[in-house]
């Protein structure tokens, strides 16, 4: 490795931390301003920390049944979305990676082509389809349509392709069925791609706004983004409260990321350089 003088090393570290500040500052600003009184958020001259730390903003949001319900509904929806999605997508990935069957090439092309169809192009007609299926204003309209994902299948398949044949040969000789091999050998090995794909799915569900706002009008099924958007348009002048709500809305995803960050950052390498 190159040798650097102490001052060069220090300069590099300073630039590195400037990047970190650029990334974290808006979020810290949001979280800290959530402790401010309504009039203090946009007070001049600007102060970073509140004069009095008001925990009541966070308390008030957490006591709002609409918030806790939205958070709960979104959380459960995201879990189901991610878990069932992992199951069906990994099953397809296994079939494409390890099985030989008729029309394999054509089916692969069919599945992978869907990856390149932009959501906006089919937004209106997807809405028509879910309307005809009677899915409007149910959780299923949020969970089912996006669950099968060519991108996820592609990613998991890449992982399965790299598993040596020897792994399943013994089981095949023992006469195990392919489905059994998938469940007993491949699934337990799938942790690395599952973390990445699963968290991606969870985040996509948690952060979605356009599709929920099109398909959900029943307030008891409101998603967290819908809650925040409604808060912003209705009570958007209560700045401290709004920022506290936004902070709480972001916390679960940030927490999830921090827990699994090692895998996610590794996964980026794989997905970027395929």
């Amino acid at each position: 490795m190159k040798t650097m003088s102490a001052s060069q090393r220090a300069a590099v570290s300073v630039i590195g931390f400037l990047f970190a500040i650029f990334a974290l500052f808006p979020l810290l600003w949001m979280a800290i301003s959530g402790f401010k009184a309504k009039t203090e958020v946009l007070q001049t001259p600007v102060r970073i920390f509140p004069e009095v730390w008001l925990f009541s903003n966070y308390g008030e949001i957490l006591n709002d049944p609409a918030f806790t319900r939205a958070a709960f509904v979104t959380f459960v929806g995201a879990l189901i979305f991610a878990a069932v999605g992992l199951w069906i997508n990994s099953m397809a990935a296994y079939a494409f990676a390890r099985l030989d069957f008729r029309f394999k090439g054509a089916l692969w092309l069919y599945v992978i082509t869907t990856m390149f169809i932009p959501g906006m192009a089919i937004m209106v007609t997807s809405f028509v389809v879910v309307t005809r299926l009677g899915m409007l204003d149910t959780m299923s309209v949020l969970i089912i349509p996006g669950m099968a994902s060519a991108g996820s299948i592609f990613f998991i398949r890449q992982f399965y392709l790299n598993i040596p044949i020897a792994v399943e040969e013994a089981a095949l000789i023992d006469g195990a069925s392919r489905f059994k091999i998938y469940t007993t050998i491949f699934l337990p090995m799938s942790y690395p791609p599952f973390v990445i794909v699963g968290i991606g799915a969870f985040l996509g569900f948690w952060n979605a706004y356009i599709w929920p706002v099109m398909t959900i009008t029943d307030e008891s099924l409101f998603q967290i983004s819908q809650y925040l958007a409604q808060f912003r348009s209705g009570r958007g002048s209560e700045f401290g409260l709004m920022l506290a709500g936004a902070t709480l809305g972001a916390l679960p995803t940030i927490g999830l990321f921090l827990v699994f960050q090692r895998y996610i950052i590794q996964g980026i390498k794989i997905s970027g350089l395929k």
Partner: protein
Amino acid sequence: MKNKKRYNNGTAYLMLSPVVIMLSIFVVIPLIYAIRISFYDWSFYQDPVFVGFRNFYLVLTDDRFYTSIGVGLKFVLLVVPVQLVLAFLFAHVVRAMGRKASSFVKTSIYIPTIISGIITAIIFQIIYNFDGGVLNAIIGSFGFEKVGWLVEKQIVLFGLAIPAIWLGFGITALIMLAGLLDIPESYYEAASLEGASAIQKMFHITIPLLKNVAVYLLVTGFVGAIQQLELPLFLTNGGPSDATLLPNFYIFEHFRNDLLMGHTIAAALLLFVVLGSISAIIFRVINSEKAIDE
């Protein structure tokens, strides 16, 4: 194993069926349906009337459609090059940093990537506030005039580009870093032995070998930035006077306001043909340049 290829048709079809059925119902059928409806006057309340290419004609003679493409391209130019240059710089900085410090920095820069559009809008609405916003306070302390980030026609696209860069920087930078770390150290050592300067190393080793990563980032950056919808939706509502009328916002606005959906769908399909071609051209141009290099 035997010579005869072993087929697992039954198992395979069973394992593929959930995915294939769901993709068919929720992606392929809507696409075919969209193509069909683009030739009809159709609304949620009446029977469709065939109008041929009229919807496409209406879109192609709509000035705002071209405005949205122009705004989209300008937005891409504001976001993607800045992101790539910053990511390139970042990758070098992180490579030179100590292990602990660099993992802290890597984690930090990735966090914005997981923040939703609405939360980003809430944060930046406060940061951008004309009188009490922190951004104007910061630039004020350097002696600059206050800026109306989201209301001045000349500035507003910058106002949207900053949060877009903030949101997308993490993944761009980490992919760039991975590409940089993939270049074998021995190349640099060999170059040093030959007496190459740092700048020569950058132009003869680093940049050529990062080209694939850069093309990937350029295309994904283009596609991501041009499809931005939530920032104009939440922060500016497309204004002032269409200065932030990004393509997807144009479509979404028609979806909200039009009774007849044919126009909306025709616009959506046309846009994706146009934008798809542009990203194909970027890809071609850069790739062919690479072919000449070799």
